[in-house]
């Protein structure tokens, strides 16, 4: 038998097997009955399985792992928007990537428990009861405080702090309040400051727009951008602090609640 005809036969057999599988094997349970495995116990079991089998790439707490390449699974998922779709990604993997299917001996209920755990990491923003009023918060944000002196929302405001146009997608109300009361906790490296002396001998300070192994880029307080090769710098100092003050004293509790309500409402508009 020539190589070619052997190949043909192999393909035909594979095709026949595939066709038979369509005819004889019931489709996956992942059609659309909703997730029947979403009790507290299921979620806990899903979490245990996740920590053990998925955490290496997606992070022990599912917040992702830049180095391993596994994305954050706690926010909006890019590959799947429904429980069934999440189920299918876990069951079948994503071909051609490091996202392998779970082993066959993992049962469908176990996969559903994983789905339930991932669902538990998200919440429906509509279900959140807020103490403040978003409209009053908006007024405060734009005219009753100095928020907009640094932050930008939908192209309006300033660039001396993080753009908040979609902040409600990533931060829960409690997080937003904590950000305003304790801005020095967990300052993102992008908002650190750098104080550098360039080859011209002039010392400049600014926001750490970018830093890699060989270069830095800062934006000074007049919004000028400066790029330097690290090799050319006469001095380099990193200030791992935020320029944002705490609003614990300067805003009332109800004002803070209103601003939280406004910020929490800032999310991508559904199309």
């Amino acid at each position: 038998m020539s190589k070619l005809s052997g190949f043909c036969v192999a393909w035909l057999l594979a095709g026949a097997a595939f066709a038979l599988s369509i005819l004889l094997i019931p489709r996956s349970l992942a059609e659309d009955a909703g997730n029947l495995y979403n009790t507290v116990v299921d979620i806990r079991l899903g979490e245990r399985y996740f920590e053990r089998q998925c955490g290496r790439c997606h992070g022990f707490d599912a917040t992702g792992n830049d180095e391993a390449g596994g994305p954050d699974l706690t926010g909006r998922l890019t590959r799947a928007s429904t429980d069934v779709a999440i189920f299918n990604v876990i069951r079948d993997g994503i071909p051609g990537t490091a996202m392998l299917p779970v082993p066959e001996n993992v049962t469908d209920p176990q996969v559903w428990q994983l789905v339930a755990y991932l669902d538990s990491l998200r919440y429906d923003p509509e279900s959140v009861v807020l103490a403040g009023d978003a409209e009053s918060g908006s007024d405060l944000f734009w005219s009753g405080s100095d928020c907009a002196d640094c932050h930008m929302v939908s192209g309006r405001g300033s660039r001396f702090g993080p753009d908040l146009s979609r902040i409600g997608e990533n931060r829960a109300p409690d997080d937003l309040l904590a950000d305003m009361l304790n801005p020095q906790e967990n300052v993102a490296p992008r908002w650190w400051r750098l104080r550098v002396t360039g080859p011209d001998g002039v010392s400049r300070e600014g926001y750490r727009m970018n830093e890699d192994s060989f270069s830095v880029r800062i934006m000074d307080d007049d919004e000028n951008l400066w790029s330097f090769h690290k090799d050319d710098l006469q001095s380099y100092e990193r200030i791992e602090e935020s320029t944002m003050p705490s609003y614990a004293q300067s805003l009332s509790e109800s004002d803070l609640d209103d601003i939280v309500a406004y910020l929490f409402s800032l999310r991508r508009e559904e199309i």
Partner: protein
Amino acid sequence: MKRLFLLVAILLSGAFIHVQAQEQQFQTVITPAFTPITWERLVNAADEPQNWLMYSGALDSQRHSLLDQINTENVAELEMKWAYQIPVIDRAETVPLVVDGIMFITEAPSNVTAVDARTGGVYWRYDHDLPEDLRICCGRNNRGVAILGETLFMSTLDAHLVAIDARTGNLLWNTEVAPYASGYSKTAAPLIVKDKVITGIAGGEFGIRGFIDAYDPETGELVWRTYTIPGPGEFGNDTWSGDSWATGGSATWITGSYDAELNQIYWGTGNPGPDWNGDVRLGDNLYSDAVLALNGDTGEIEWYFQFTPHDVHDYDAIQIPILADIEVGGEMRETMLWANRNGFFYTLDRATGEFLYGDTFATVTWASGLDPLGRPIRVPGMAPTYEGVMVSPPIVGATNWYSPAFNPDTGLFYVTSFDGEQEFFKRDEDYEEGERYTGGGGRYTQPMDAFHSSIRAIDPTTVDIVWEFPIMPRSSAGITTTAGGLLFSGSADGFFFALDAETGEELWNVSLSRRVHAAPMTYEVDGEQFVTIASGNVVFTFGLRD
């Protein structure tokens, strides 16, 4: 049924033509002839620096090339000569080999391609069929091949060892090293020792029992196997409580070294399993996190040195043993130099395994130092807990599998190092065959940029850090030095660069834009020196401006 068959045949004929078209892209082209690689040539690999004949360049794994055409004076004139795009999108960890102008590049998941080392033009490509339900801990990787005669030897993710005709890319034999469905896999380049192919195994996160194997290069038959966990009745089995030895990991997933005069193979071993829950495997857990010296003919263990007894932090001793003769206390000693994932640097006598001295080379909080025998002095309260405990180094280690280098001209040892910390968690887990068996995990509480990553040049006679070059964020690139006074390495932010090996001064860099997750290598064709590095999914080759 007949009708169904006919229907399927018609449906698939379109797919078949499509596949045939794809096949033609990779039609076999024979490589130019090269002088077959004998064992003598491998022993003396450093003497033919135009070639790069094994993963670490030479059997002593110093990763130091005698080529000096590219040097500290002209390195700034480097320019890209060619790039080879790996067709499968994944992370490239390959260190290519070069034999007489032919380069062999391994690709994810388990393929190898022969290209013209002057142009990157493809001669042939071997595609290894893999099952879909692989058990791999950390991505689809392959780090390189070994060569003997005209045959390449490669590890595959389904835990096979394959032999491939280096001239044509044809498969010669395909041996199952271990059953992949039980959690075994293979990623590292094998090492040729005399007339055998020496190779390790991965799967330390799946409760395997590790080993080092020797295969007959002609037939693919197993010649000997040395388990890295002693069985019942063997010395060291009592360092595992109960039956924990049977699922104790101790994988061997990076390439070792060989000393021809001592006839010893040196190979590092990985973490005991489960990684972060030591309660179920009380004892020192021999020979996990150790280096083994094996007899070069029989594979018998001649000595061992365990860096991290009863490890609970995943501090694999999966580093490349560097063999170097250096002056210790006024006399020349045959030493082994080892910067370990656990944060300590060790100098051992490689003939006997005697610990000569050691010290930290990065931030370490789990141990306060080493005792006179080289055992770590543990700090209480650093074992993982259910709630989490902060420890340095983090799970990825103070260094890891990234190739270090030793430059006899400077006398310095170079290593990619990391000062970081991580919360370690413990979990209770039962072993299930083929499932992960890690007993916990880790979590960073700070952004990566808050930590410090660098290349450190260490004086191995004092463990002093002579210089360091900061890179960011955490690097996982290997290092190569040359007689041109240069050190080449890469960074996670996609740079490939050259430093002055003596001073650490930055001499040249280029942004390749994707993570460098491999070690550089250098070679020469027609009198012209080249340097090659994999970045992202591409293999780049640089040379001096014409």
